[in-house]
């Protein structure tokens, strides 16, 4: 059952009891969010089962992918341009501007592509998920689904999860491509690095492994953003104020998890 009630009926007796209670609740909430995520992922094969489900998946793909495209284009391009500019300024001291392409490519593939995509999707799509499901929760629409014996996780969360799982790696790759193009633009206009030389240096250092790790990161970020946002939506309380708080919490938690998980994945795949 998705509808959750406060675990404790009575207020805590003292400060220690309050701290202990918060710790237990936090662990319970993490477990609940994880359980929702697993349930949503488990339902993913059913997304292709009927025409109606496929249409819903397409709708969510549109919301996640196409509607975020404009902001991702701008952010991806400028991330590459800033990287190119900063790296170029340092490399110029050693007259090694030709390596701008290598530096931008590695940064974009390994870190900046998935990170920027994750952060943008958390802000644009995740917040919208939390707000929409939160509004549905406080308007009793989620409870109505439960009473109709329709699983809110399968009905609401699984299509969003499916769309994020499919779109985050694609958008991350798109961000990388735009970042590399942006870096090339700066290299050519600010540091006089010829385009073909820039691309040649960039492609020389690009390895498939780096691309795969970047895409894996993006995939993990997509799952985490959906899990956190839908969890916040399903546990929203107290009307419009609660929806606002749930939206804020979903963005903050997603940002933090993206940073922490990004570090952990990097540490796992790249030896020190």
């Amino acid at each position, binding site marked *: 059952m998705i509808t959750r009630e*406060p675990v404790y*009926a009575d207020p805590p007796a003292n400060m220690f009891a309050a701290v202990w209670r918060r710790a237990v609740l936090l662990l319970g909430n993490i477990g609940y969010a994880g359980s929702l995520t697993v349930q949503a992922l488990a339902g993913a094969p059913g997304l292709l089962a009927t025409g109606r489900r496929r249409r819903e998946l397409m709708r969510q793909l549109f919301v996640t992918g196409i509607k975020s495209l404009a902001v991702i284009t701008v952010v991806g391009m400028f991330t590459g341009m800033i990287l190119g500019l900063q790296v170029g300024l340092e490399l110029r001291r050693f007259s090694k501007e030709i390596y701008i392409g290598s530096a931008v490519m590695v940064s974009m593939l390994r870190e900046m592509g998935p990170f920027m995509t994750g952060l943008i999707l958390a802000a644009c799509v995740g917040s919208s998920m939390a707000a929409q499901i939160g509004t549905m929760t406080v308007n*009793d629409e989620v409870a109505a689904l439960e*009473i109709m014996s329709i699983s809110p996780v399968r009905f609401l969360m699984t299509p969003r999860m499916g769309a994020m799982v499919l779109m985050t790696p694609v958008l991350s790759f798109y961000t990388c491509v735009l970042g590399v193009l942006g870096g090339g633009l700066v290299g050519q206009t600010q540091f006089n690095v010829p385009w073909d030389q820039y691309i040649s240096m960039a492609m020389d250092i690009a390895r498939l492994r780096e691309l795969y790790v970047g895409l894996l990161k993006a995939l993990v970020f997509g799952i985490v953003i959906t899990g956190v946002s839908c969890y916040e939506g399903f546990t929203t309380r107290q009307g419009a104020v609660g929806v606002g708080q749930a939206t804020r919490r979903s963005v903050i938690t997603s940002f933090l998890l993206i940073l922490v998980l990004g570090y952990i994945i990097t540490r796992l795949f790249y030896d020190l």
Partner: protein
Amino acid sequence: MIRFEHVTKCWDGRNVLNDLSFEIKRGEIFTIVGPSGTGKSVTLKHMVRLLTPTSGSIWVDGMEVSAAGADDVRQVRERFGYLFQGGALLGWLTVAENIALPLRERTKMPQAEIEGRVAEALRMVGLEGDGEKYPNEISGGMQKRAGLARAIINRPEIVLYDEPTSGLDPVTARTIDHLIQRLNDELGVTSVVVTHDLQGALLIADRIAMLTGGRFVEVSAPADFVATEQPDVRGFLDAQFIPKTGLHEMSARRNT
């Protein structure tokens, strides 16, 4: 049919329901009235296990819903229709799609049969021709009627109404009341209505219960309800600004 046995619901140290015991008989319209925040909707939500009591038990036809597992809860819920206060329609689906939702998601009913059932439900609630509109394109009263159509599409044995007439003009409110009565008469459903609207309650109820402080202070037929000297009930009746004679006439009209 539905039985509450010493049900207490406690939140933040406050008893929202306080040792509440009552029974609803098959086929009756049982109306719960009372001031805001006294636990009327909470009582309703316990019946379908959207909430679980802190202590006590809730029974639906011999099954203890309050202690049932997920599968049993699902089975029990299939016997219920629930009209939420705002209709609780899904905004991205049309009225017809909303009404068809339980059939589409839970049954393998052929499309033609679903369409027939939806058309019948729309006709029953007076929304023929509005099936293709989206919830934000229809009025609050129409949304409630659409919610009611969705609640009855599965032909439930019990329909729960949470404030079915709140926020509606008196004419629309009476239309909803007549609809509840008609569904009760024509489909033989058991109805539990939570409302502030005493006029409506007197018109349609077989029994009216007054909930104050988490427990019923009066449970009686409409005629007895208006005649009682119980102070909370008297205060509630007087606050409705309806002369006593008017109330008697209304309860008498229901009884005939």
